[in-house]
């Protein structure tokens, strides 16, 4: 007689709690996204907007000055050049600030992806990068994701290995599967491999794909370039 009400009371309380938690956390999610947006918006606002407006006005002015006073026009052009460069640097900085793609997180993510697809996975080498700039880590993580997505989608493999090695000379990522390989006529014109090449270009990296038994994709980013590019990106 007493047991049931307490049980019910507890159950109801639990259900209410559940609902509250869901609600609260949803709000937190929204808030986080909201704050992130606001932050980015502020950044864009204060720096880029100003610089781009300036470039707009000064190119207008230079154009009109050309026939009247070339040396003044040249001064304006020098300002434009300078402004474009510093704006570009800011874009890079913003990119590296915003990066969410930490390599260790992405490794965890792709492992789960492969597991879910019934493909055994082996991860070798460094899981965390010690000396690579943020932008490089970002690019590498994106390459990892694309390559593993391809393994899951196309390879029919049973096994996939992922190896990361970071030396003072270069950063290397090898993804190898034992699937059907690339030899079959490629059906789709996908964006994956192209995306990998394009982003690697940004950090002077390169990609090599081999396909004998299964597929091997090797990505290299030289360290010297990392530093040069990294300065702007840090």
């Amino acid at each position: 007689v007493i047991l049931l009400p307490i049980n019910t009371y507890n159950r109801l309380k639990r259900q209410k709690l559940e609902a509250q938690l869901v609600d609260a956390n949803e709000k937190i999610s929204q808030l986080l996204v909201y704050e992130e947006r606001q932050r980015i918006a502020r950044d864009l606002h204060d720096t880029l907007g100003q610089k781009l407006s300036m470039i707009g006005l000064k190119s207008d002015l230079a154009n009109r000055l050309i026939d009247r006073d070339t040396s003044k026009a040249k001064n304006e052009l020098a300002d434009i050049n300078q402004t474009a460069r510093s704006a570009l640097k800011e874009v890079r900085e913003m990119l590296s600030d915003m990066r969410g793609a930490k390599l260790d997180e992405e490794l965890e993510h792709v492992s789960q992806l492969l597991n879910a697809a019934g493909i055994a996975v082996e991860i070798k080498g460094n899981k965390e990068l010690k000396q690579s700039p943020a932008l490089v880590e970002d690019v590498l993580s994106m390459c990892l994701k694309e390559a593993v997505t391809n393994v899951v989608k196309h390879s029919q493999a049973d096994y996939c290995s992922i190896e990361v090695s970071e030396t003072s000379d270069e950063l290397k990522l090898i993804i190898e599967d034992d699937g059907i390989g690339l030899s079959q006529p490629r059906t789709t014109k996908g964006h994956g491999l192209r995306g990998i090449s394009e982003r690697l270009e940004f950090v002077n990296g390169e990609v090599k794909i081999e396909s004998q038994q299964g597929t091997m994709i090797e990505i290299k980013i030289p360290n010297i370039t990392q530093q040069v590019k990294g300065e702007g990106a840090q």
Partner: protein
Amino acid sequence: MIKIVIAEDQNMLLGALGSLLDLEDDMEVVGKASNGQEAVELVKELEPDICIMDIEMPVKNGLDAAQEMIDFPCKTIILTTFARAGYFERARKAQVSGYLLKDSPSEDLASSIRSIMTGRKVYAPELIDLAFEEPNPLTER
């Protein structure tokens, strides 16, 4: 001749904007200010037809300055880059004649100035943000 005072805290922008407007045959930049306070003083002193102002400036921002000049005969134009929550509303309260993009082509700016001189108001659609005073999701529900 349309007499103009410009207020902008970014020196390079101030210079470029001034030179561009000076190149128009019917316009003359009579004064340049680097904040809202200076702008109000210059407008009192020089009695221009038009005062063009940036919003974000030290000492006194462009919207506050416009509010202060609400009864002056001089028409005010606000130039800015992005729509920001609440700015447009305040600009309207300050009865500005123009609310325009900082990067609008100089011909467009010049023609907006001319049409403002005839008593019209010109607002750039890109900058109107009334509906978007982004509600904070925490207070929304």
